[in-house]
């Protein structure tokens, strides 16, 4: 079980390797990526900022809740902060479990809680040169 904020690009293959063990039959990976259009405006990039200490604690709490509900500790979650370009991975969630239903449910739980609770904010830069803080759930992968 691991959760972290990361300033550097996320290496998806190594996250998958972290949870791979022979007791698991199902692995679900979720990737959030920066979209080129949000609410009709052309986006050129995104800057993620966080209340870092709290975001780390909150992410850990979310992962523990998912582990308790699903019965697996094979969970890794990494959230990027800093400046991201189009298509960059902003969040990666990997859950492995003996059975697929629990893997999907835990993955979904984690992303929904991140959207609700993680003290992270993003400012979108638009192709027209302006930039703006993005409101909750008016987000890149809504």
């Amino acid at each position, binding site marked *: 079980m691991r959760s972290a904020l990361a300033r550097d690009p996320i290496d998806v293959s190594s996250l998958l390797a972290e949870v791979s063990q022979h007791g698991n039959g199902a692995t679900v990976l979720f990737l*959030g990526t920066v979209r080129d259009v949000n609410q009709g405006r052309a986006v050129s990039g995104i800057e*993620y*900022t*966080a*209340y870092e*200490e*709290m*975001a780390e*604690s*909150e992410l850990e709490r979310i992962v523990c809740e998912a582990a308790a509900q699903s019965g697996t500790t094979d969970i890794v979650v990494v*959230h990027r902060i800093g400046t991201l370009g189009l298509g960059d991975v*902003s*969040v990666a969630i990997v859950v492995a479990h003996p059975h697929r239903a629990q893997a999907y449910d835990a993955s979904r739980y984690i*992303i929904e809680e*991140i*959207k*609700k*609770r*993680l*003290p*992270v*904010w*993003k*400012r979108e830069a638009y192709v027209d040169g302006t930039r703006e*803080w*993005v*409101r*909750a*759930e*008016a*987000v*890149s*992968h809504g």
Partner: protein
Amino acid sequence: MHLHAANEYLSIVTITALLFASYADVVGADRVQLTLAPGSTVGDALTELRARAGGNRLPPKPLTAVNLSYAEHTRVLEPGDELAIIPPVAGG
């Protein structure tokens, strides 16, 4: 005399308020020291913040956290607490 000074020391609560994202923009700072009466709550600290320049542009009931966990506005603050005023989150 010595005792009196100690009582005076106990009669104020100094906390740090943190502001983020759009809230830091409107207040013009991301960290503010607040001096409050003993027994003051998160709600009292928000009232204090609103009296400052730009503070009136904070929303009526923002999300708040104390010492890295979400906390209600009725939560009583202790000396040294870190109070965070949390704009609508947009992670993921």
